[in-house]
């Protein structure tokens, strides 16, 4: 190595360095700009509007009026009827998330542990195939299957296990489970596939039975997938509208349907807005908490 003479040393100009940094930041902003514009225009502003409307009042005909700001709509959230609906929705979303986890985990584990990459890809494609057709169409397909002369009903009646399920809570569960299972399987697969299997070997070598190794190593290490999958299933389940509307009956009204009613037939925009905002806040808090519990690995 040759030593540079004093006068040959390259001076680092702090001004130049700063300008380079700024340029870099500007280029970064430029690439993200379309996304920013889109999200602000069609996501952030509407959300703020919803929040604003929740404090609005109504004219005699029910038209929202952006004056006489009040908390009436928010106060109505504690109405027993609303609380009952919220409770039912929450309960349904929790159960659906657990069911998806229970069914999705073994399946994701099975896919992730296939040795050949082609087998894994094929199975993943099978999981994704339903997305090729419209969700609404698929839900109507379930309606046909669950209807009086539908296959599921006829099978149930022939075996004496169940009758007609359409327009009941089981039908809503079937629809939700069917609709959101892939959202559970995919993140679980991604997490399980990443697990270093020599860790399981190590656990077995250190006197763990197969079950112990699963509980102490595989399960904790698939937690990022469990957390991500649960969030992806829980949130849309809680706000589900299409599924309970098409497959459910009068006794299965959920919070999502109730909100739609406020903006439609009931003509109570402020109350609908307050309900929407409340759900948003609850989910935000729950999600942050859940992510935190997922730890640094997420």
């Amino acid at each position: 190595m040759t030593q540079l003479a004093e006068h040959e040393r390259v001076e680092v100009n702090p001004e130049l360095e700063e300008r380079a940094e700024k340029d870099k930041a500007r280029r970064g902003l430029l690439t993200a700009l379309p996304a920013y514009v889109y999200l602000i225009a069609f996501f952030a502003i509407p959300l703020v509007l919803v929040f604003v409307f929740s404090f609005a009042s109504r004219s005699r005909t029910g038209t929202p009026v952006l004056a006489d700001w009040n908390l009436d709509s928010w106060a109505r959230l504690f109405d027993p009827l609303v609380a009952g609906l919220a409770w039912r929705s929450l309960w349904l979303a929790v159960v659906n998330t657990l069911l998806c986890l229970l069914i999705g985990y073994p399946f994701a584990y099975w896919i992730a542990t296939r040795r050949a990459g082609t087998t894994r890809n094929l199975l993943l494609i099978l999981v994704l195939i339903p997305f090729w057709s419209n969700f609404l169409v698929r839900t109507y397909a379930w309606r046909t299957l669950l209807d009086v002369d539908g296959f599921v009903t006829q099978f149930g009646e022939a075996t004496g296990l169940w009758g007609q399920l359409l327009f009941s809570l089981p039908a809503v569960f079937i629809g939700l489970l069917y609709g959101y299972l892939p959202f559970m399987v995919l993140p679980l697969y991604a997490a399980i596939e990443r697990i270093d299997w020599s860790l399981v070997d190590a656990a077995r070598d250190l006197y763990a039975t197969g079950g112990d190794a699963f509980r102490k190593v595989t399960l904790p290490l698939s937690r990022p997938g469990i957390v991500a999958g649960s969030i992806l299933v829980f949130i849309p389940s809680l706000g589900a509208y299409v599924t309970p509307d098409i497959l459910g009956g009068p006794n299965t009204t959920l919070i999502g349907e109730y909100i739609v009613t406020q903006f439609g037939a009931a003509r109570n925009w402020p109350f609908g807005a307050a309900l929407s905002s409340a759900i948003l806040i609850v989910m935000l808090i729950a999600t942050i908490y859940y992510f935190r519990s997922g730890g640094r690995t997420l």
Partner: protein
Amino acid sequence: MRCGFWYVARLMSASAVTLSNVTKRFGEEVVAVDDIDLEIGDGEFFSLLGPSGCGKTTTLRMIAGLEFPTEGSIKIFGEEMGIRPPNKRPVNTVFQSYALFPHMSVFDNVAFGLRMSGIEGSEVDRRVSESIDLVQLSGMAKRSPRQLSGGQQQRVALARALVNRPKVLLLDEPLGALDLKLRQAMQLELKDIQKEVGITFVYVTHDQQEALTMSDRIGVMSHGRLLQVGPSEEIYESPANRFVADFIGETNFIEGQVTAPGEVKLTNGALVKARTHSEPGSAVTLTLRPEKLNVNSPGTDIPADRCSLRGKVHRRIYYGDALYYEVDIGTVLVDVMVENRPGVLRWSEGDEVLLDFHPEAAEALTE
């Protein structure tokens, strides 16, 4: 009862691990391990040495119970292992990439085996800290494996295995990921630890230097077969075949034909003495290590008990601690290593030279 059984088993055979006719196939075509017979003695530091894909790791995994042999039997202290799962074998493994549990502290990693075998409370604390001290990681118990350097992680893996006091410790290229200086230091430390705990080590490596330095005995493997088993010196000084000679250290191969007992005529016409048991007339390959040869000027008198070869310096390579000469003996280039001591004669490319060696250093191989 169990202790009594172990006592009897150990009396019956002094070998820690016995492999008889062990074969492992993956699918129809891949034969990872091909009919291996091996006995590893109690308290021995035994290395399985070979290039990657030679079946050494599969052999280790079969002893651990992480794979089961397709054919043959594996006994540990006389007890047939069969298809006994890894958690029921008296062995522990140090894995190649350490396989430390990333979601547990160093303490919990080391305590894992103890807790799984039902040991609890202060006994766990005592043995874990004892084990952490043994590998010189005192004070690191609460850290996460992520916060440790490669060398420290390696020590945790060692502590995690040793804390269970296994009858046999299996090590799968444990030093492979460390840099050279650290690896050399750890080699000596591992050897010391083995002496201290007194248990059998079965060590898998592709690094011949590592195997030679640490092992009591070495088994050289290639393509699933065990080619030669013996003490380090025997493996290096009298390799059983061309593969072993080539894989362990540097060597020259010179083709020739046996003319009389202990005498070989090389393809360049030179008649030399060598260690051979082959019948006169059979074709052999002499293996001659570079450090066993001397370089002299052409007119030098070579003592009668030594052999000589004429040649011409083709190239000189400077290694720092040694000089390498590639000497053209007419048919092949022979590498000669000369230690770089003060006053040593230096030869230049194109110089005529006379090489000499002791017949004991030339092993005639038939394979």
